[in-house]
C-alpha cells in the first residue's frame, strides 16, 4: 500500500467510486461542476477548492451546479434522499449553515422519528470547517458542536486521507443524514490510501498514538497538533495517548473511557468555540462515567470565546497550538492524585 494521495484526492475518489457503484448517488452544490451556463470550459472549477474536479466528466448530469440558494438545494437533497436517492450536498463552508439549518436539523434529522420510523433520509452534507485560511469570522468556524447536539444527525470529521476516504464512502452508504466535515487546512495532507473501495464504520474512534501517562481526546486538525505535542512530550519522557474521535455522533465513548481508565488523565482538545463544545462534552461524559479513574482534573484546550480573527497573527494565536496542548498535559501531570 504505497500510494500516497491528499485528503482532497481521497474525498474525490470516494465520491467517484460511490457514484460509479451506485446510480442513486447524485451530487449538488455551488460550482461543484463549475462553468454551468457559461461559454468557457465546463467543469471549470470542481468546487471552490477543486475537490470535485473531474467528476462531471465521468458522471455528467448526476452532478448539479446550483443557484446560490442553500436552503433550496440542501433541502432538495434531503427531499431526494427521502425519495430513494443518495444525494451528497456540498455546503462549501460550514459557516453557511445559518441560511439552511432548518432543512438539516428540523427536516433531515427528524423525519425518521417524527414519522414513526417510516422514512429514511440517506443524505450526506459535505462542508469545509476550520480556521487557518485567513478567511476570517464567517469562513473559518468549526460549528461541529451545533450538529453534534442535534439528535438524528451523524457527524464525521476525518483527520487523514485514509480516514477521509473510508468514512466518506461509509457516510454515503449510511441510511441516516451525515454531516461530513472536511478541514480545509488538511486538504493537502497526504497519506497512504488503498485504490480500492473500503469503509470505516461510523462511531469508531482511532487511537492514533498509544501512551500510558495522559489521554488526549480530539478530532480533525487538532489530531495533528496533539501528535506534535505528544512528540515533544515524549522527549520529556511523557507518554501521551492520542484518541482521534473521527465521528462525533455517534460517539465512541468506550474507546475514550478505556484510554482514560488506562492513563487516569485527560486533555480534551477542540478547535470549536469553547462553550458547549466537543471538549466539554467528552470531559463531562468522562467525569460522569469514569470519575474514579481520574487522577487529576480534566484539562480542556479550545480557542478563546471570540469569533475567528482575520489577521494572520491573531488567527495563529486563536487556533490551539501544540505548545498549549503540551502545557495542558504537563499540568494534568503536576496535579497529583487528589
Amino acid at each position, binding site marked *: 500500500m504505497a500510494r500516497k494521495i491528499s485528503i482532497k484526492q481521497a474525498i474525490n475518489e470516494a465520491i467517484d467510486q460511490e457514484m460509479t457503484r451506485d446510480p442513486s448517488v447524485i451530487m449538488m452544490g455551488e460550482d461543484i461542476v463549475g462553468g454551468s451556463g457559461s461559454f468557457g470550459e465546463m467543469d471549470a472549477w470542481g468546487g471552490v477548492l477543486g475537490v470535485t474536479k473531474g467528476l462531471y466528466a465521468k458522471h455528467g448530469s448526476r452532478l448539479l451546479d446550483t443557484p446560490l440558494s442553500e436552503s433550496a438545494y440542501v433541502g432538495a437533497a434531503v427531499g431526494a434522499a*427521502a425519495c430513494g436517492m443518495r444525494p451528497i450536498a456540498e455546503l462549501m463552508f460550514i459557516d453557511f449553515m445559518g441560511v439552511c439549518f432548518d432543512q438539516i436539523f428540523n427536516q433531515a434529522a427528524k423525519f425518521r422519528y417524527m414519522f414513526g420510523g417510516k422514512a429514511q433520509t440517506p443524505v450526506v452534507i459535505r462542508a469545509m470547517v476550520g480556521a487557518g485560511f485567513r478567511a476570517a469570522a464567517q469562513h473559518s468556524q468549526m460549528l461541529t458542536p451545533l450538529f453534534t447536539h442535534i439528535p438524528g444527525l451523524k457527524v464525521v470529521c476525518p483527520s487523514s486521507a485514509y480516514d477521509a476516504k473510508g468514512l466518506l464512502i461509509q457516510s454515503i452508504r*449510511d441510511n441516516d443524514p451525515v454531516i461530513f466535515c472536511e478541514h480545509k487546512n488538511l486538504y493537502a495532507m497526504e497519506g497512504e490510501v488503498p485504490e480500492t473501495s473500503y469503509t470505516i464504520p461510523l462511531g469508531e474512534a482511532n487511537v492514533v498514538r498509544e501512551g500510558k501517562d495522559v489521554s488526549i481526546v480530539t478530532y480533525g486538525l487538532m489530531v495533528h497538533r496533539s501528535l506534535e505535542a505528544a512528540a515533544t512530550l515524549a522527549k520529556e519522557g511523557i507518554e501521551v495517548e492520542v484518541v482521534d474521535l473521527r465521528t462525533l455522533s455517534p460517539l465512541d465513548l468506550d474507546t475514550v473511557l478505556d484510554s482514560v481508565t488506562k492513563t487516569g488523565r485527560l486533555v480534551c482538545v477542540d478547535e470549536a468555540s469553547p462553550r458547549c463544545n466537543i471538549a466539554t462534552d467528552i470531559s463531562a461524559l468522562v467525569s460522569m462515567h469514569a470519575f474514579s479513574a481520574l487522577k487529576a482534573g480534566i484539562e480542556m484546550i479550545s480557542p478563546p470565546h471570540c469569533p475567528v480573527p482575520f489577521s494572520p497573527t491573531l488567527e495563529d494565536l486563536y487556533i490551539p497550538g501544540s505548545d498549549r496542548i503540551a502545557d495542558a498535559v504537563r499540568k494534568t501531570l503536576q496535579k497529583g492524585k487528589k
Partner: protein
Amino acid sequence: MPSNPFPLSKERLLEVYRTMRTIREFEERLHVDFSRGDIPGFVHLYAGEEATGTGILCHLGDGDRIASTHRGHGHCIAKGVDVGAMMKEIYGKKGGACNGKGGSMHIADLSKGMMGANGILGAGAPLACGAALAAKYRNKGEIAITFVGDGASNQGTFLESLNLAGVWNLPVIFVVENNGYAESTSRDYAVSVDSFVDRAAGFGLPGITVDGTDFFAVYEAAGEIIRRAREGGGPSLLECKTVRFFGHFEGDAQTYRPEGEIENARANIDCLKKFAAQVTSQGVISAAELEAIDKSVLALIEDSVVKAKAAPLPTEADLTTDVYVSY
C-alpha cells in the same frame, strides 16, 4: 340516464365527493373533540379548503410525491393516507400514522407519496424539489407538489425553491393555498404583490389563479400544469383562493375576522355545497347518492375516533426507537 358533462366519470366524481366529505367531517369532528379537551397540541383544520387539495391531488398516483404544511389533514386524506391511522396519530396513540411520535403537524406516509405535514413554514418546497429531482432521474413521468399558505409564501425557503425549480426545470408544482390569513395577519398586509401570478413570473414560472372553492376549476387548472410537468415542461405555480372555516388553530378567537365572514363563507362558498349543486343539477349524481356517502363517511370518522380512543398509548420502550436507522 343524462350524459356526463364533467371531466370525470361518475365513479370518480363520487370518489372525489367522498374525499372532500371525509376531509370535512374529519375536521368538524376534531373541532368538537378538541374543544372537549380530548386532543393534545396544536391542530390546524382544513375545513373550507377541501376542493383545493382534492382537485389537485386526485390527479396523482402513489409514485407522485407531495410535501404539505401545518394544515395538512386534507392533503393527507386526498393523497390516500389511512384515516384511521391519522386519527390515532392525532390522539398520540400507537398504530398512528407515525406511531404517535409526530402528531397533527407531522403526519406522513411515504408509501403513499406523502412526505409529511410540516411544522416549519415553507419547508416543504425544497423537499418537493428534491422529490421532483428524484423523479427526473427515475424518468417515469412522476411529479411532486408542495403546498404553501399565502403567509408562508414569503419564506425565503419557498422563494429560493421557485428559482431552483426553474433552473433545474423540475417537475414540481407550487400550490399557494390563499385563505386570506396567516394566523391573524391578512394576506393583503403580508404579501407585497397583488397577484401570485406576478410573483411566479418573477421567477420565470407560469402562474395561474383559480377559485379554490370550485372543485372543477381547480381540477382543470391543476390537470393542465401537472400534465405539462409530467411531459418535461417544468414547474408552475397555482394559486387557489380559498377560505378557512375555523380559526388559525383550534382555540383561536378570530377577532381579527370581520363579522359574518365565516357564516357567509359557509353559506355561499362552501366547496362541498358547490360541488353537490353542480353534480346534482346536471343530474349525473342524485342527492341520495351523496347522502349515502355522507352517512358512510360519518360512520368512518366515528369508527376512527372510537378506535383512536381505544388504541394503546406508546410506552417508554418507544421513546428512543427510530431516531436513526442505525446508531
